[in-house]
C-alpha cells in the first residue's frame, strides 16, 4: 500500500513539472520579443513582404518602442530589398519601395534610378526633365554621392539653357562649400568663371552708386571662392575701400575715413605710399583744426584734435610741434596777464612810460584788443603830457584823414559863392582847455551877415576821441 502511494506522489510531481514547463513555454511564446524575432526571421529568410506586414502589425500592438524601432529598421531593410528585386522589372515600383525604405542605403539606389532617367533625358536634350531629376536628387537625397555631379549639371543648365547666372552662382557656392576639390567642383569652377566679369561689373556699379556694402558683399563672395585671382579681387576691394574713404573725407568723417584707408592698405599693400600720403593729409587736417581751436583759446578741443593725429600716426612730428606751440601760447597768455596787471599798477601810480613798456611786452606775448587799447591810451597820455595843445591840434588835423578841415573849407568856399570875401568872418581853430585834464574844447566860427556857423567839439587826448557839442558840429562829422 505504501509503494503505490509514493509512486502516485512522484507521478503527480512529474505532471506538475511538465505543466509548469508548458506554462513557461506558452508565456514565452506570448512575449513581445518573440514578435520581433519573428519579423527578423521573415527578413532573414527573404520573406520581405511578410516581415513588413508583421512589423506594421507589431507597431500597433507593442508597448516597448525599442523593439518597435528595431522592427522598423528591419522593415526599412525589407523595403530596400523589395526595391532591389523590383528594380529589374519596374523602376516605378522600385522607386516606391526605395521611398518606403527611407534609408541612406535605399537613397543611393533611388538616386541611381533617377540618374539613369536623367541620362535618358540628356540623350534627347530634354533639359527640363533633367532639371527635374537633378532637383529631386539634390532635394531628397542631400547625402548622395551624386550631389556634386548633379550640382555641376544644374549649373550648366542654369547658364547654358536658362541664363540664370545668379542661380548658377548659388549652386556653385553650395558645391564648393560642400565638396571643395571634388572633380565636379573643379569643372564647375571653370564654367562659373564666365559670370565673374559680370559680377565684378555689377559690384563696381554698386560702388559707383555709393552702395558700398552691397558692392562689398559681391566682392567678398567672389573672394571666398577660387573663381578669380586673389590679387585681382584684392585690388578691387582695396580700391573700393579707398573710394569709400574719400567719400567719408568729403563728408568730414576723418576717423572713419582713416579706418577704411587702413583696411584698404591690407588689400593693396603695394599702394602703401599713396595711402599713407592720404592718411598724412587727414592728420594735417586735424592739426589745422587744432590750431584753429588754439586761436579760439579752446585748448581742450585743440588737444583732442592733436591726439586724434596720434591715433592715426603715432608721434607725428608736426602734431608734436603744434602741441608745443599750444603750450607756449598758454604760457605766454599767463605771462601776458601778469605783465598786464603790472602795467595797470604802474599806470595807476602815474608811471605811464613804464606802463606803456609793460603793455607792449604783454601785447608781444598775447595780443588782445584790451592791451592794444591800453597801449594807445598810454601813448596818447605820454604825448598829451609832453605838449597837450600840439597833440590836440594833431588829433583834430588827423581826424579821419583831415575830415574836419576839409569840410570846414568846403563850407567856407560855399559861403564865398554867396557872400563877398569881406562879409565872411573866419575865426580859425581855437583850442581852449576844458574842465577835465586831457580834454580840450575846440571851436571854429564862420560868420556871415545872414548865417552863423559856430562849430564846437570836445577832444579827449587820452583816447583821441572827438565829441561834437552842437548839432552843426555833429552834422559836419557825418
Amino acid at each position, binding site marked *: 500500500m505504501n509503494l503505490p502511494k509514493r509512486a502516485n*506522489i512522484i507521478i*503527480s510531481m512529474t505532471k*506538475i513539472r511538465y*505543466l*509548469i514547463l508548458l*506554462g*513557461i513555454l506558452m*508565456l*514565452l511564446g506570448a*512575449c*513581445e*520579443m518573440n514578435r520581433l524575432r519573428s519579423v527578423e526571421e521573415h527578413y532573414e529568410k527573404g520573406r520581405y*513582404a511578410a516581415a*513588413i506586414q508583421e512589423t506594421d502589425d507589431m507597431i500597433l500592438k507593442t*508597448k*516597448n*518602442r*525599442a523593439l518597435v*524601432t*528595431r522592427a*522598423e*529598421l528591419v522593415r*526599412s531593410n525589407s523595403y530596400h530589398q523589395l526595391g532591389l528585386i523590383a528594380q529589374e522589372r519596374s523602376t516605378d*515600383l522600385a522607386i*516606391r*519601395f526605395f*521611398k*518606403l525604405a*527611407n*534609408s541612406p542605403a535605399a537613397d543611393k539606389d533611388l538616386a541611381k534610378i533617377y540618374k539613369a532617367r536623367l541620362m535618358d533625358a540628356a540623350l534627347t536634350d530634354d533639359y527640363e526633365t533633367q532639371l527635374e531629376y537633378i532637383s529631386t536628387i539634390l*532635394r*531628397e537625397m542631400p547625402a548622395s554621392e551624386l550631389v556634386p555631379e548633379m550640382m555641376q549639371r544644374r549649373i550648366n543648365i542654369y547658364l547654358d539653357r536658362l541664363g540664370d547666372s545668379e542661380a548658377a552662382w548659388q549652386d556653385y557656392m553650395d558645391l564648393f562649400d560642400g565638396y571643395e576639390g571634388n572633380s565636379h567642383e573643379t569643372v564647375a569652377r571653370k564654367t562659373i568663371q564666365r559670370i565673374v566679369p559680370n559680377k565684378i561689373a555689377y559690384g563696381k556699379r554698386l560702388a559707383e552708386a555709393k552702395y558700398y556694402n552691397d558692392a562689398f558683399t559681391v566682392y567678398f563672395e567672389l573672394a571666398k571662392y577660387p573663381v578669380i585671382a586673389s590679387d585681382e579681387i584684392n585690388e578691387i576691394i582695396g580700391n573700393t575701400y579707398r573710394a569709400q574713404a574719400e567719400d567719408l573725407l568729403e563728408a568730414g568723417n576723418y576717423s572713419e575715413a582713416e579706418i577704411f584707408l587702413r583696411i584698404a592698405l591690407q588689400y593693396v599693400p603695394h599702394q602703401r605710399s599713396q595711402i599713407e600720403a592720404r592718411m598724412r593729409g587727414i592728420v594735417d587736417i586735424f592739426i589745422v583744426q587744432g590750431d584753429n581751436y588754439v586761436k579760439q583759446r579752446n585748448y581742450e578741443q585743440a588737444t583732442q584734435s592733436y591726439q586724434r593725429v596720434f591715433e592715426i600716426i603715432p608721434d607725428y612730428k608736426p602734431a608734436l610741434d603744434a602741441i608745443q606751440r599750444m603750450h607756449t601760447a598758454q604760457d605766454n597768455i599767463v605771462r601776458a596777464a601778469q605783465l598786464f596787471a603790472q602795467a595797470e599798477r604802474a599806470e595807476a601810480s602815474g608811471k605811464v612810460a613804464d606802463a606803456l613798456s609793460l603793455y607792449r611786452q604783454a601785447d608781444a606775448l598775447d595780443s588782445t584788443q584790451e592791451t592794444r587799447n591800453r597801449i594807445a591810451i598810454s601813448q596818447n597820455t605820454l604825448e598829451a603830457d609832453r605838449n597837450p595843445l600840439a597833440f590836440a591840434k594833431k588829433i583834430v588835423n588827423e581826424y579821419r584823414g583831415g575830415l574836419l578841415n576839409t569840410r570846414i573849407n568846403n563850407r567856407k568856399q560855399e559861403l564865398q559863392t554867396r557872400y563877398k570875401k569881406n562879409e565872411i568872418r573866419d575865426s580859425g581853430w581855437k583850442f581852449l582847455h576844458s574842465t577835465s585834464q586831457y580834454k580840450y574844447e575846440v571851436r571854429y566860427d564862420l560868420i556871415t551877415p545872414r548865417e552863423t556857423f559856430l562849430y564846437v567839439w570836445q577832444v579827449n587826448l587820452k583816447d583821441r576821441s572827438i565829441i561834437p557839442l552842437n548839432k552843426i558840429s555833429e552834422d559836419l562829422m557825418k
Partner: protein
Amino acid sequence: MKRSLLTLIILVAACFAFAQRFDIEAFSDTTKYGWKDYSDRSLYRQDLLERQELLHIYEMEANSMWDAVIKSAVVPGWGQFTNKAPTKGSIFLASELALVGVSLYFYDRSLYYYDKYMNANQVEDIENYYNLALAPRQYSMLFLGSAALVWAYNIFDVIQVTGEHNARVWERLMEKHRSSRVNFTANGVEVRF
C-alpha cells in the same frame, strides 16, 4: 478523430474565406505611413536614425528576459526585484516561502504519523496512524501545488515586469534624448536650438 477532422476543415475554410488578395498598389503606396512628401520622409528618417542610435544604450540598460526568468525560477520574486518591482517581488517571495513552509510542515506531520504507522503492531493503531498520516500529506500536496501555481504565476509576471521595465527604460532614454540640447552622435556633436 472525426471532431479533429471537422475542426481542420473549418479552419482551412476560414482561411480561404478571410484571406485577402495581395494589393501591390496599396502595399507600395508611399503615403501609407503618413509621409506626404520627402520632407515627411526626412523627418521620419531623422527620428528613426536618432532612435537607432539610442538602441545601443537601450541594449546596455535593458534587462535580459532570460536572466529575469531564471532568477525568478530560482528564487521567486528575484526577477521582479531586478526589474524595479520590489513590492511584487516581496509578495511572491513571501507567498512562496509561506506556502512551501506550510507544505513542509504538513509533510513532516505526515511522516511522523507514517513512521508511527510503520512501527504500529496493533490493527487499530495501524489504521489510526495511516488515517492520521493521510490528511497532512494531502494538505502538504495542496500547499505545494499552490506554491507551484504561485511560482508559475511568478514566472509569468516576471516576463510582464521585464517587458514593462524595458519599455520604461526606452521611454526614459527617449525623454532624456529629447530634452538634451547637446547630443554626441556618430557624425559629431549635435546642438539643438
